[in-house]
């Protein structure tokens, strides 16, 4: 509820450097203290993603962990287990229609999707979505380079 309020009503605060990281640290602490399965899922996901070639982790500008290929962002994971991925509009519609992901929590009409990591059981689906996002991003990068 607090997260929803902050990202919807106080989004402008994210322009202040470091503030999103502080907020995300608060989310991680809350997750650690009150939701251990979610924390485990977040760590498992992060480790699994980082085993993939060419994926780099960096602090994300909106807090949490950003996953990148070079300078292209594949997605990011917030401290409360919310995974945001960019899959493009057509994939987004398909994934949401099939119930595999939710429309993005802030920009529901964009090419972004959201997925809640709640327990280690969600890892498989999260990784499948991540792979879709990675393929979409790297392929579109290649196409634009060829053009």
């Amino acid at each position, binding site marked *: 509820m607090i997260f929803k309020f902050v990202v919807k009503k106080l989004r402008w605060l994210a322009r202040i450097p470091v503030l999103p*990281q502080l907020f995300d*640290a608060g989310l991680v602490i809350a997750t650690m203290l009150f939701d251990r399965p979610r924390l485990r899922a977040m760590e498992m996901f992060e480790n699994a993603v980082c085993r993939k070639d060419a994926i*780099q982790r*960096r*602090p994300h500008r909106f807090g949490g*962990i950003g996953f990148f290929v070079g300078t292209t962002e594949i997605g990011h994971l917030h401290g409360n287990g919310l995974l945001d991925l960019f899959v493009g509009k057509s994939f987004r519609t398909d994934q949401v229609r099939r119930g595999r992901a939710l429309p993005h929590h802030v920009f529901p009409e964009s090419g972004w999707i959201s997925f809640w990591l709640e327990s280690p059981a969600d890892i498989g689906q999260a990784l499948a979505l991540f792979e879709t996002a990675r393929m979409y991003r790297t392929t579109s990068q290649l196409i634009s380079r060829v053009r």
Partner: protein
Amino acid sequence: MTGGRWLHIILGLVAANVVGVAFCFAFVLLFRVPDQVDLPSRAQQWFYGFAIMAIWPSLVLIPMAMGTAAAYFWRSLSFSLWEYFLWWIVTSLISPFGAYFAFKEGAVCLLIGFPILFVCGFAGVLVGRLLFKSKTAAINLSVIPVLLIATLAEGKMRQDQRHVVEDRILIKAPAADVWNYVVSFPSIHTAPNYWLNAVGLPSPLGTTCQGAFVGAARECIFSDGLVFKERVSQISPARLLTFEIVEQPSNPELLGHLTLHRGQFQLIENNDGTTTLIGRSWYTLHMRPLWYFDWWTRDVTSHVHLRVMEHIKALSERKR
């Protein structure tokens, strides 16, 4: 756990606290020296202009730099988030204990400041663990000097302002009866119910006054033998009592953090046998970030007001 692993943990722990202490000392040096040396006005203007650009409160940036420094030394340990969390608890506890024992800082001030140190520092750890996982760890370490510059600049933005806290309660007694216990009152014997009093914050015990006249010496006595020396500056029987704080005790919770200027009790007769008693305190807070410490100061002052005012209420209503 191997010796090398322990060494890295301890290095992180020490580095974080060394960074914290270094920042604080650099802060003190940078802002004491220019004040004592006559700088040309242009240099001063540049200095202030630079300070205005850097808006980061030191209490956010210093802990973040500490957390980042710790994460740098812990980068090779493959910590889980829990391990980062637990080791950060240990690391962040050293500074307050050090400040308490080495610099005689007040325990309550440290307790109030600890959540900032902990959360902001943990944010630094989380950022650091991502920054220093990459091969560009050395380059990314440059984040610390950037934080240092921003932090040092913040201190020059101090513009101390006078604030006032006001509290009111309704007393079922006429103003004349209430007035008997406003100028001075017998000792408070009930135990304080504010949680900070339980961890060492002194609570008001009683007040003595030379008499009900302007210039009368008044003393507000707190637990731990603390005495605020006051002088009555305005008096209007059954309506208003204002007193200036002429000397505040040299308690570590107050020294350099808070200056109390004045206190006031106002009585408003409600014409139905009841009186509204208003307590006010004027103070200047020297801590930053202001919004955080001002919230605590208001809360603490309000509890002091209410403890005294509840006592006056009990005495006034009992008399009836």
